[in-house]
């Protein structure tokens, strides 16, 4: 069928049959449906311009323009459906792919992204983001955590403790995300849990983005005296974003319990079995 979707008892995710990109998420328990588009983009790292000679580097994130480029407008997709898991494998480019996964009983959508080695043969440093775009009316607000504990309200182009003269429309709105970032309107909340600290923001209403990888060609003049370039071919990185769709009233329960499982994940140990008893008796 043309319908490209994965589903379990709690969540349904639908993909555009032509582009293979995620276009909608549904919380079946709460009858919540949210059109949400997710894709990968890259900022072109600044090498200095007429406003400022500041280069994007290890200490400084500074894209050379506000709009990022899409890694790809479509993905080659493959579908896996078994009694225990349903997956959509998306291949955006030679250096960017993702598996969108739903295990049986899972109440969140798992996006396992694999990014790199970032090509820099064109002479441009690149800063890769995963971005979720929705129709939520978020009024310039978004929320990020501090080490998995206190969640802080962030307002675009604003600081609570001083009158901000915003000179960097993108970087000036990026904040540290240790375990989660979320956006919401009066009824619905979209939360993205991270498996490591990342930079994140919401640069337009209804949108949320997380930076997953960077590869830069110039030093930013802050003391490292080395570009964030990685030796050889460069690194490829794999990680996961867990996406939760909830009513605002119940969202905290969902993301707090899930984030604990993510940060204190089980440890797997294998053995061939047939060991000798530990106690003589």
């Amino acid at each position, binding site marked *: 069928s043309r319908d490209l979707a994965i589903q379990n008892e709690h969540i349904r995710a639908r993909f555009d049959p032509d582009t293979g990109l995620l276009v909608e998420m549904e919380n079946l328990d709460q009858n919540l449906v949210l059109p949400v588009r997710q894709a990968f983009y890259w900022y072109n790292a600044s090498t200095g311009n007429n406003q400022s000679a500041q280069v994007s580097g290890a200490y400084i994130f500074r894209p050379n323009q506000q709009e990022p480029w899409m890694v790809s407008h479509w993905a080659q997709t493959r579908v896996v459906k078994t009694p225990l898991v349903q997956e959509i494998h998306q291949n955006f480019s030679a250096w960017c792919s993702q598996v969108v996964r739903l295990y049986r009983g899972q109440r969140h959508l798992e996006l396992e992204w694999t990014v790199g080695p970032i090509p820099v043969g064109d002479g441009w440093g690149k800063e890769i983001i995963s971005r979720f775009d929705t129709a939520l009316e978020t009024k310039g607000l978004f929320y990020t955590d501090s080490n998995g504990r206190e969640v802080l309200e962030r307002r675009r182009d604003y600081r609570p403790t001083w009158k901000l003269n915003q000179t960097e429309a993108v970087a000036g709105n990026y904040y540290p995300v240790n375990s989660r970032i979320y956006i919401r309107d009066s009824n619905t909340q979209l939360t993205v849990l991270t498996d490591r600290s990342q930079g994140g923001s919401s640069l337009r209403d209804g949108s949320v983005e997380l930076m997953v990888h960077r590869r830069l060609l110039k030093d930013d003049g802050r003391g490292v005296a080395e570009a964030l370039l990685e030796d050889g071919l460069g690194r490829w990185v794999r990680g996961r974003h867990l996406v939760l769709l909830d009513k605002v009233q119940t969202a905290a329960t969902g993301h707090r319990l899930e984030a604990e499982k993510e940060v204190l994940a089980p440890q797997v140990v294998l053995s061939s079995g047939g060991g000798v008893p*530990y106690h003589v008796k």
Partner: protein
Amino acid sequence: SGDSAPLNEAMAVLQHHDAVSGTSKQHVADDYARQLAAGWDPCEVLLSNALARLSGFKENFTYCRNLNISVCPLSQTAKNFQVIIYNPLGRKMDWMVRLPVSEHGFVVRDPNGTVVPSDVVILPSSDGQELLFPASLPALGFSIYSVSQAPGQRPHAHKPQPRSPRTW
């Protein structure tokens, strides 16, 4: 004997902002990774000793550090093996175990010897395959599952179905 002091030491060194935020030269970042890996080795011994004492059996415990890229020599070659899963949370947890395996059918049994549902999924990028099964883990405790190749059972591996997007 195991020892967690080297990992503690490495974590102490990595409180430096260069380690936390990646603002170091490449060779320093590589050395941070080396210290963490070196610190992890004696922790595996510590964990093995604890598991041996708690499970009552001295096993040759194996840690697969590259599960995120579907590499684990033991689960990819052994006909039978045990999977010990430790849950550090103070509450019971259900968790989907995912392990790279060879091309066979498998039977998975829980600590009571009851067969649990399992699937084998083929990975599109590498044509490797992974065994999936749901594990139930006690709070601050561990469960031991047994995996054995099902003789004669053709792997009913679920192969990803390519979707031909509209020609662009």
